[in-house]
C-alpha cells in the first residue's frame, strides 16, 4: 500500500516485458480491481476465462479473462492493436481460442454452436452487407437466420427504421448507402433480434450525433430488459458516461477492469476521467 504509483507502474511495465505469465505481486490497483469482480458473483451473460488466441499460431491475446453480467454494458477499451477486435472475433466465434473458454449463459460454442450464436447480435466496426440484397431483404434474412417471429420482428424493425431515418429506403441496395447509413442498417439488424448479448465494435465513429444518441437510448432500453452489451470504443467520454464497467486491454492482456470509481480508487493519481486513467495506463509501456 505504500508504493508510490510511479514506481509501481514502472515495475509492472518491466515485468510484462520480461515475462508475461508471471504476474507481479503487490500491485495494489491491479489486484483490487480483479478482486472486486470476484466478490460480486452475479449471473454472467458472457464469461471469457483465460483465453489465449489470435489469428495465427502467434497469440495476440495472452490469457484474457473478463465477464459481462446480465443487464450490464461493459466497455472494452484499448489502443489500436491492443486486441479488442481479436477479443470480439473470439467471442462471436470467428476465431477459436488456443486455450481457455468462452461461454454465453453457460453455453460454449463447442457444446452447441446454434444456441451459442442465437444469443449474440453483432455490430461490426466496418459495416458489411450482402451486396445483392436490398435493405428489406437484409431484415428478412435476419428474421430467417435467427428464426424470429416475423410479425413481431417487423414491428420492431419498422420502429428502428423510423428512428434511424431509413424507413423510405427499404428497397435500396447497399451500394447506394453511405457509410453511416450502412452502420445504421447493422444496428437495425442487430437490435431486431432481441439477443441476450450485443457485441458492438466501435459504434460511434461514422454515425451522426443524432444517431449516436438514438443508439445510446436503444442500448439503455435493452439493458433494462436484461440484455448485456460488450462494446469496444475509443470515444472515452461517451464510454465513461454510459458504460457500467470497463475492461482495459493493453498488449493482449487485461490491464485492469472495474467500474469507474473502482478504477479511480485504484489509480488515485491518474485523474478523474476515464481518459486520464487510460492515458496513464498506456504510459506504463511508453516509459
Amino acid at each position: 500500500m505504500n508504493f508510490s504509483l510511479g514506481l509501481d507502474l514502472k515495475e509492472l511495465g518491466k515485468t510484462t516485458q520480461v515475462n508475461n505469465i508471471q504476474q507481479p505481486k503487490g500491485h495494489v490497483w491491479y489486484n483490487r480491481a480483479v478482486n472486486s469482480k470476484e466478490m460480486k458473483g452475479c449471473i454472467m451473460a458472457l464469461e471469457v476465462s483465460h483465453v489465449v488466441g489470435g489469428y495465427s499460431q502467434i497469440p495476440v491475446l495472452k490469457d484474457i479473462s473478463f465477464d459481462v453480467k446480465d443487464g450490464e454494458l461493459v466497455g472494452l477499451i484499448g489502443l489500436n492493436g491492443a486486441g479488442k477486435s481479436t477479443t470480439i472475433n473470439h467471442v462471436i466465434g470467428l476465431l477459436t481460442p488456443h486455450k481457455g473458454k468462452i461461454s454465453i449463459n453457460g453455453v460454449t460454442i463447442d457444446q452447441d454452436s446454434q444456441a451459442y450464436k442465437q444469443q449474440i447480435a453483432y455490430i461490426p466496426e466496418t459495416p458489411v452487407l450482402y451486396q445483392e440484397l436490398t435493405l428489406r431483404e437484409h431484415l428478412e434474412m435476419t428474421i430467417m437466420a435467427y428464426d424470429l417471429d416475423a410479425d413481431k420482428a417487423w414491428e420492431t424493425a419498422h420502429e428502428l427504421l423510423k428512428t434511424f431515418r431509413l424507413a423510405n429506403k427499404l428497397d435500396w441496395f447497399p451500394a447506394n448507402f453511405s457509410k453511416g447509413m450502412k452502420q445504421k442498417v447493422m444496428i437495425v439488424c442487430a437490435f431486431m433480434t432481441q439477443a441476450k448479448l450485443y457485441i458492438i465494435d466501435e459504434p460511434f465513429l461514422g454515425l451522426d450525433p443524432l444517431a449516436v444518441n438514438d443508439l445510446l437510448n436503444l442500448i439503455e432500453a435493452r439493458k433494462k430488459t436484461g440484455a448485456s452489451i460488450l462494446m469496444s470504443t475509443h470515444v472515452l467520454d461517451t464510454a465513461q458516461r454510459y458504460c457500467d464497467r470497463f475492461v482495459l486491454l493493453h498488449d493482449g492482456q487485461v490491464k485492469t477492469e472495474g467500474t469507474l470509481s473502482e478504477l479511480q480508487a485504484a489509480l488515485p493519481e491518474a485523474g478523474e476521467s476515464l481518459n486520464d486513467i487510460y492515458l496513464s495506463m498506456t504510459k506504463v509501456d511508453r516509459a
Partner: protein
Amino acid sequence: MTDLFKDRLQRHLREMAKYLRLVFNDFFVFALLFFLGGLGLGYSNILKSLKTGLWWSPVVALIVLVIVAQIGRFATLIEDADRVFLLPKERAMHAYFVAARRYSQFLAQCTQVITLFILAPFLSVALHWTVGKILILAVAQVVLKDSFLRLDLASAYQVTGQRRMNQWGFKWLLAIVILASGLWLTPYLALVLAVVVDAAVALWTQQHWQKQQIRWREQIKIEDNRMLGIYRFFNLFTEVPMVSGTIKRRRYLDWLFTCIKPKHSQTYLYLFSRGMVRGTDFSGLVVRLTVIGMLLLYFVRGQWLPVFLAALFIYLIGFQLLPFFQQYDDVVFTHVYPVLPEFRLKSFVKLVTLILSVAALLLWIVVVIANFQLETAGLTLIVEVVEVWYLARIYTPQRLARADKNKA
C-alpha cells in the same frame, strides 16, 4: 517524375505481357490467323471488283479514318493514391504527363499508320490517288491523332471551358472536318488544318498548364476505366482478379423467389438465389454456357454425340458453380448467423439442382427439336437426369466438404 513514369510503365508492360501470353495461346493465334487470312482475301476480292469514282467510296474512307482516329487513349498509369502522395509534386507532374503522352503516342500512331497502310490500295483504286497523296493524308492523320492526345493532356488540368474541348463530340467533329477536307478537296488542306490545330493546342497548353490545378479525380477515373476495359478484354480469356462482377437489381425476375418460403432452414437459399440472379458473375457464366450448348446441339446430329455434348455442358456448368458457395465467406454474418452449416450446404445443393435441371431441360428440348428421334431423346434424358442428380447431390457436397477441410 519521368523516372516514376518509367517505373510504372515497366510494371505495366510486365503485367500486360503476362496477360497477353495467356490471351495469345496457340489455339487463339491459329484461329486469329485464319480469321485475318479470310478477311484479307475478302478485302482483295472487293478491291478487284471496285470501280473508280463511286460516290460512297470517300464516305467509307472517312468513316474508317474518323473512327480509327479515336483509337489509342491517353494512358497516364496514375493511381488512386497519387492524389494524396503526389499532391505536393503537382507542378512536377507535368513532366510525368508529357512522358505518358509520348508513350501513348506509340501505340496510337502505330494504329493510325497501319490503318492507312491497309486503306492505301482502296484509296488508290477507288479514288485514283497517287502514293504521294496517300502519304500526305497519312501524315495528316498522325498529326490529328497527336493533337487529340495533346487535348487529353490539356484536359488533365482544371481550366474553365476546358471540359468542352476534350469532349468526344468535339474530337469527332474535328476529325470529320479535317479528314473530309482531305478526302473531297485535297490532302494538303487536311495536313495544313491538322498542323494548325495541333500547334494551337500545344501553344495553348504551354501557356496555361502552369497556372492550373490537376483534375486528379477525373484523371484517376479515366485511367481506371481504361484499365478496366483492358482487364475486361483479358477476362474473356482468363481469370482477372481486378474485374469483379457488377450487381443488377433485375426486378423483373423477382417472381423467381416467390417459391422460396422464408423459413429458418432456407436462410441461405434466400441469399444464394438472389445473389445468383442479381450478380453478373455466375449467372452470366450459366447463361453463356447454356446458350452455347444449345446452339451447338442445334447443329449436331447423331446417335451419341448429342448425348455426350449435353452431358459435357451440364458438367461444365455444375463444375463452375462450385466456387459460388464461398461467395459470401467474407461477409462476417455468414459465420455469425445462428444457422447450422448443414442448412447452408443443403441450400446450396438445392440451388445447384435447380439450375442444372433448368439447363438440362433446355438442352434436352434442343436435342429433341434438332434430332426428332425417340432414341436419342430418351438416352439424353436418362443421362441428364442421372448426371444432374450425381453432380448436385453427391459430387458438390463432397467437393465442398473436402475444400473446407483443406482450408482448416
